[in-house]
């Protein structure tokens, strides 16, 4: 049952092949058996899950069910869930029981999904390997010695290990796409503003975007349909008509124009990945697409610009965590300054501290123009590169990450080496574009992901191309032996 896609499970529920309660119990048992070695979950919520499953079975019985009614999912622990710990992977929020639900959680609940629990992640979503989590690293189900990627590493590992058929993730610089690639699953980061950020614990507000992670593009389409849409509670939410991403996925992609940026295939790319991407593009050409070489000349500046914008915004967002209103509070503070400094010093881990310091420095008097404004100008140049490219092509393809999953400890002592593992994904966030990762092969037993980038609001097109590719390949059906 756990190998089935959301679409197949949904059909099974409707035809009464099994109930949501049976499905939920089966996944909960699998989590109990396998998660101790993977550590994908921070919190499992069996009682809530069984209650929600029973309610879903009633809806199914009444014929009042949608495509996601009764489907088990799990939420990245960055999303606030009423009455359930919402830790964001941090000691700072270890005791934080959210008094409200994130809009994404409300929407997925309203769609009838059954939440099994909350998923592990890099602390405050800052990391590319899940090694910065207060709850210990998640293991990659394909090889327990390697990282699952990050920051949505728990989400990717849980889907890859078949502990849950779909999960939510968030992506500020690659945090959906890079772990999806490392764990051999499918994930999409939508256009900035498509999915509400309300109740999604903020990291870098001008970049953060939530999206689904699942086995297939079709499953991502079903989840995104439920997640996306205008939310007055998010000041950057976009007011536009709702789309049905799961419709028309089987139509032809004849005439699709693919751009291959030379900057994605240069030095530093693992040759196995290069080869797998070329093979995948060959398959898509066979479906009627054409290929064109393009250039994104400011691509090399995306890392430097990102490591100003993201830390600057995080230093501002995390200022609210001061030991007073919620979160960790230091014992016996001698004065107010000591309360602030020690609550934050003891509550945050090393990578979060590094980013707060960089951000504070970049925003401090005399440096604002040289760093934050400069980075925003670079952002414009990067965004203009994409604009120009999309005058000639419909989608851009390339690797999601320069390497496959690396070993624990391999990059955790060198922040720059870690930052470079997101080198192909960061520019997409800076430009606010949608991007996804699909599995396209293996190197040394570890999955390879291909990135597909589209113009603003082209989620449907990305999912369509990925779905057609998955119709003629079976990389997305492979699962690790556990």
């Amino acid at each position: 049952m756990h190998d089935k896609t959301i679409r197949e499970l949904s059909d099974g529920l409707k035809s009464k092949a099994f109930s949501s309660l049976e499905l939920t119990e089966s996944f909960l048992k699998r989590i109990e058996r396998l998660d101790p070695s993977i550590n994908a979950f921070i919190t499992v919520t069996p009682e809530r899950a069984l209650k929600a499953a029973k309610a879903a079975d009633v809806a199914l019985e009444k014929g009042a069910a949608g495509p996601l009614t009764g489907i088990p999912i799990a939420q990245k622990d960055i999303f606030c869930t009423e009455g359930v710990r919402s830790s964001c992977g941090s000691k700072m929020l270890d005791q934080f029981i959210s008094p409200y639900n994130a809009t994404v959680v409300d929407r997925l609940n309203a769609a009838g999904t059954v939440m099994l629990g909350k998923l592990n992640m890099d602390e405050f979503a800052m990391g590319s390997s899940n090694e910065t989590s207060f709850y210990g690293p998640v293991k990659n189900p394909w090889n327990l010695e390697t990282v699952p990627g990050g920051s949505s590493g728990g989400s990717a590992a849980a889907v890859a290990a078949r502990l849950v058929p779909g999960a939510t993730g968030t992506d500020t610089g690659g945090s959906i796409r890079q772990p999806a690639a490392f764990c051999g699953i499918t994930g999409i980061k939508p256009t900035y503003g498509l999915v509400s950020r309300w109740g999604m614990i903020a990291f870098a507000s001008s970049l953060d975007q939530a999206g689904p992670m699942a086995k297939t593009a079709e499953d991502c389409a079903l989840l995104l349909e439920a997640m996306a849409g205008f939310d007055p509670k998010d000041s950057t939410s976009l007011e536009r008509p709702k789309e049905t991403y799961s419709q028309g996925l089987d139509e032809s992609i004849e005439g699709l124009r693919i751009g291959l940026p030379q900057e994605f295939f240069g030095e530093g790319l693992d040759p196995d990945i290069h080869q797998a991407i070329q093979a995948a593009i060959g398959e898509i050409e066979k479906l009627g697409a054409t290929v064109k070489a393009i250039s994104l000349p400011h691509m090399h500046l995306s890392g430097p610009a990102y490591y100003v914008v993201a830390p600057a915004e995080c230093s501002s967002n995390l200022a609210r965590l001061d030991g007073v209103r919620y979160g960790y509070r230091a014992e016996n503070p001698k004065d107010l300054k000591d309360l602030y400094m020690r609550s934050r010093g003891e509550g945050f881990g090393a990578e979060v501290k590094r980013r707060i310091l960089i951000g504070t420095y970049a925003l401090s008097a005399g440096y604002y123009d040289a760093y934050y404004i400069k980075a925003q100008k670079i952002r414009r140049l990067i965004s203009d590169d994409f604009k120009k490219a999309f005058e000639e092509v419909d989608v851009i393809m390339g690797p999601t990450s320069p390497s496959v999953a690396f070993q624990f400890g391999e990059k955790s002592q060198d922040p720059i080496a870690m930052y470079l593992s997101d080198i192909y994904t960061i520019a997409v966030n800076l430009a606010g574009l949608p991007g996804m990762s699909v599995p396209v092969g293996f190197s040394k037993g570890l999955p390879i992901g291909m990135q597909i980038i589209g113009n603003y609001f082209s989620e449907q097109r990305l999912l369509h191309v990925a779905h057609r590719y998955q119709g003629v390949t079976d990389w997305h059906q492979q699962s690790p032996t556990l």
Partner: protein
Amino acid sequence: MSLTSDEVNRIAFLARLAIDPDKIDAYAKDLSGIMNFIDEMSAVDTEAVPPMAHPLDQAQRLRPDVVTEENQRETFQKIAPKVEAGLYLVPKVLE
């Protein structure tokens, strides 16, 4: 560029972030490396480029000036580390 330990202490104070004194040098080294990485930007002429704050150049949405939120003091204070009589407790600020 490189950041000195004194500068790291100054930034940490601005951020109200206690850093273990034994680790200041390690932070100075890491932060200097990150700042060098960032400095690649300074080689680019951006004089005529307008800064980009929102990918779709959207402005802040306005809404009618009506009350939409109710007071939920009790709910929100239930998760506070220290409250008394509906107030958040902090160490004495004035003697």
